[in-house]
């Protein structure tokens, strides 16, 4: 399985990663090598096998619907790159 530079650009867009133009081709080569290695999986016989998402046979725990966390807005905004008046700043979204 090989990935073309165009496919790499598309995947990078989906993953919200900007790639410098000169990195696209090396990434295409490396990702293709990884997918070649992963391709061994197609030889495994898995017709009747249930997919395994998780090592533990458990269900999500439930707890009473009560507030258990303090409001720590100031602590969390103190580590944000750009805030103003308690709000996170981002580039203009709506014209």
């Amino acid at each position, binding site marked *: 399985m090989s*990935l073309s530079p165009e*496919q*790499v650009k598309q*995947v*990078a*867009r*989906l*993953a*919200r*990663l*900007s*790639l*410098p133009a000169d*990195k696209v081709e090396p*990434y295409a080569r*490396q*990702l293709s*090598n*990884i*997918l*070649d*290695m*992963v*391709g*061994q*999986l*197609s030889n*495994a016989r*898995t017709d009747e*096998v*249930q*997919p*395994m*998402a*998780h*090592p*533990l046979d*458990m269900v*999500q*725990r439930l*707890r009473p619907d009560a507030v258990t966390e303090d409001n*720590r807005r100031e*602590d*969390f905004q*103190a*580590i*944000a*790159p*750009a805030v103003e008046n308690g709000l*996170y700043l*981002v*580039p*203009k*979204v709506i014209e």
Partner: protein
Amino acid sequence: MSLHELSLRALAEGLRAKKFSSVELTRHYLDRIAAHDKALNSYVTVTAERALAQAAAADAALARGQGGPLTGIPLAQKDIFCTKGVRTACGSKMLDKFIAPYDATIVEKLHDPAGGAGMVMLGKVNMDEFAMGSSNETSWYGPVKNPWDLSRVPGGSSGGSVASVAAGLAPVATATDTGGSIRQPASLTNLTGIKPTYGRVSRYGMIAFASSLDQAGVVARSAEDAAAVLQAMSGYDPRDSTSVERPIDDYLGGLAAPLQGLRIGLPKEYFAEGLDPGARTCIEAAVKVYQSLGATVREVSLPNAPLSVPTYYVVAPAEASSNLARFDGVRYGHRAEGATSLNDLYERSRGEGFGAEVQRRIMIGTYVLSHGYYDAYYLKAQKVRRLIYEDFRRAFAEVDLVLGPTAQSVAFKLGDKTDDPVAMYLNDIYTIAANLAGIPAMSLPCGFVGGLPVGMQLMGNFFEEGRMLNAAHQFQLATDFHRQWPKGFAS
């Protein structure tokens, strides 16, 4: 003997007998870090002031007759665990300025003087970026060197954890293991490292890589030291939804049990082509030691084990691509300058903040989860994961422990595999299966090839950490590989 050569038990006894104080012990380690770490690059952040304050508090507690077996003993924290008020960078430019607003559960458990073990945190140790790597060469803070040969890698991702402990710059360190990141570096640096059962140790506050595989553990200079710290780290945590509500076995109390009748299985797939002949000789000799201790040995088969690496490189990147979506340049972490739109902010913050290996894994994960490829890759890998798990279930119906190599060979040279991701991934060929199945596994020293350490791996059934540690401890009573020090760091 110098302080840094003492076991955790000897340190605890020395503190109680007032042969030295925790402040003196902590200073001893801080001095060693100052003297030796330029050569190793194992620490990213040294928290000297905080360490001395914790040590003074530990001394006061001990003077009042309070404290437990680990009170006042120093420890290095892998920089993947959130430490309140201390930078938690996870080996990444993305988090270079991130001061964690809360403590990971294991940080509370190990360092809290009242409810926890009262250990002293020396600092935060280096690692591959977001724990993605097998050589510690993907760290934004530069590679860590192997104390046994400074031109070689210490393994990864917990490279700083093992280098600091192997060189005597910490008595013990925390580490994490998603596909071998505790065991492979322990093997390459002559340490004892244990990855417990998935769910045994809380993941709360441990920066997520692949959530169905990640598990925290310990690297130490003996099974006894590892048992003491694992005991303190383990246990149910309501803040981690995959934490298992189940009592912790008495790991230390179980170390002395004789091995008479222990059934050990050797998976034939682990002794096939690819294993270095020198490493094989060491492991075969270790098997003979176990036989002399009363264990019985038989061959077992894990027929799907050779598919562990391809399975992992679908499952782990898929989970990583989801987990790392949280880094958006808005709430915390690196933010690109002068973004013109929200998308531009996301793309450039992530393009600048993540290194090449992390970007590769995000892209692989995004690809295998994308429309049209999900069944062929992700669903297929989840099915093979089940086959690997079933292999272990069958093996553990016949034997108590599975024994094999941890890595294919001794530590390789820095730079040897950085241009070839697939060659780097194959480092974890023997370790990944335990993460996919969720079972506990450990590495311990079993010999040297050309002056470089070789580790062997023990794997146990779910929640059989105690049996593994017992088997490792008995081996260490009969051998002295784990007592060897790298030249230049002994004194």
